[in-house]
């Protein structure tokens, strides 16, 4: 148990599956109060809430399509209504939407990817920072990607670009919010077995990714969770801000 996470109010966006679900469950296992955000997957979000409660944490569900700025503010307010505060925000919600080459990218796809992966991080953090400032501090953890460094896999231009944006935002927000005792860091997963890859990558693509990973295997969502706990704990990482922890089995070492 990480003592200082007990009772902390944590909002994890995109927490119904994959890395977000693993992070939410890990916070629950450390006695945190977790707001589990989902967009469409209510049944899976309920299941994550069950895991949090079974582990001794508290859980509430908050839903909304984070492509809309109103929803970003709304899920923060509902977290604060439920727990009276917000100590940790994990900006995990994001998507590839579709793999497409440059020639086939249109305004609609661009807006979908950038609004969800980038604008939601800005707007949700902006809403949460108001409360964190008043509380005297907080922690923001963004989820970027190995793609931010290496440009992305096939057809992932916009996704990779949006994650590069998130990595840069992480550094800029860290500088701006440090005076309010808010630390801002990020976790950059490599190839992790999640519904993201079930949806956007073929088994052949995953096999070709695997051969480029020194550890010779695809990562597991639970193997990312420790990095979130470490960054969220002031007892463990009080002098770390503006940093990105890469969890990629050595696939890319910037």
């Amino acid at each position, binding site marked *: 148990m990480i003592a200082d996470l007990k009772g902390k109010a944590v909002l994890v966006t995109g927490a119904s599956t994959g890395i977000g679900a693993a992070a939410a469950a890990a916070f629950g296992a450390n006695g945190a109060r977790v707001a589990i955000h989902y967009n469409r997957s209510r049944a899976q979000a309920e299941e994550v809430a069950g895991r949090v409660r079974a582990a001794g944490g508290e859980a509430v569900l908050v839903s909304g399509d984070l492509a809309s700025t109103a929803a970003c503010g709304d899920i923060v307010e509902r977290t604060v209504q439920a727990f009276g505060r917000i100590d940790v925000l994990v900006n995990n919600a994001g998507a590839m939407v579709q793999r497409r080459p440059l020639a086939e990218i249109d305004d609609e796809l661009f807006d979908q990817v950038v609004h969800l992966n980038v604008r939601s991080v800005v707007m949700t953090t902006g809403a949460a920072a108001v409360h964190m400032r008043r509380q005297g501090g907080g922690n923001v953890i963004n989820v970027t990607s190995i793609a931010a460094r290496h440009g992305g896999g096939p057809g992932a231009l916009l996704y990779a670009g949006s994650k590069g944006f998130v990595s840069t935002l992480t550094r800029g927000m860290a500088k701006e919010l440090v005076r309010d005792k808010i630390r801002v860091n990020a976790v950059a997963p490599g190839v992790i077995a999640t519904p993201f890859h079930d949806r956007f990558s073929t088994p052949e693509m995953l096999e070709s990714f695997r051969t480029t990973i020194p550890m*010779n295997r695809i990562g597991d969502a639970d193997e990312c969770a420790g990095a979130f706990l470490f960054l969220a704990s002031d007892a463990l990482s009080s002098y770390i801000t503006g940093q990105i*922890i890469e*969890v990629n089995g050595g696939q890319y070492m910037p």
Partner: protein
Amino acid sequence: MFSLSGKVALVTGASRGLGWAMAQSLAKAGARVVLAGRDETALRSRAGELGEAGTWVAFDVTDHAAAARAVAQIGEREGRLDILVNNAGIQHRRPLREFETADFQRVLDTNLTSVWVLAREASRLMIPQRAGRIIMTGSITGFVARPTISAYIASKGAVHALTRELAIELAPHRITVNAIAPGFFATEMNSALIDNAEFNGWVCSRTPAGRWGTLEEIGPAAVFLASDEASYVNGHVLTVDGGFTASM
């Protein structure tokens, strides 16, 4: 979470500063810690502070035969080596035109060659175990420069590169290799800088956190990298710098 119960760790440069801070955190997380350094009296006293969890071995990291013997001895006495914290390092400040070649080589021998030798010796124990964690003490000066510390900067940049190479080479043996890049920490090695009002003012204004790091703030990073929770973190340089390198 982050438990190192049952693990054996070797920490070099462990009698003071960042090494001692990391040793304390590893012990607190449940590891048995072998403290390494040159000063027997200091090591004995530090090991005493760790109680049951602490033991020590005295050697100079630049004496490669002694380093090999020390690692082999840990294998014999403890039966295993799970974690190597390759931390011992020295600093030498001199403008380039006055920097003696012998001093440059002394810094490189201590900060780089000894790190490579200890990683090699540790790997000989870790490979048959099919498990191990090697953690280097790098530096933010591996990313950004300051004048008059040319040897130190070259050594730390090389440690970051070596971290990546070893991570790849040892990955098939289920050994991870990562580094911690501290920013400005209030250590004994930096005491002259802390006492220098101008330098102290520069660090505090230049670091977004507005202060030097404290010793309690480094150890948990080593515990994280040594823990099961970091099983897919490999070849990473974890920067602990109060936002220094995120800022211009």
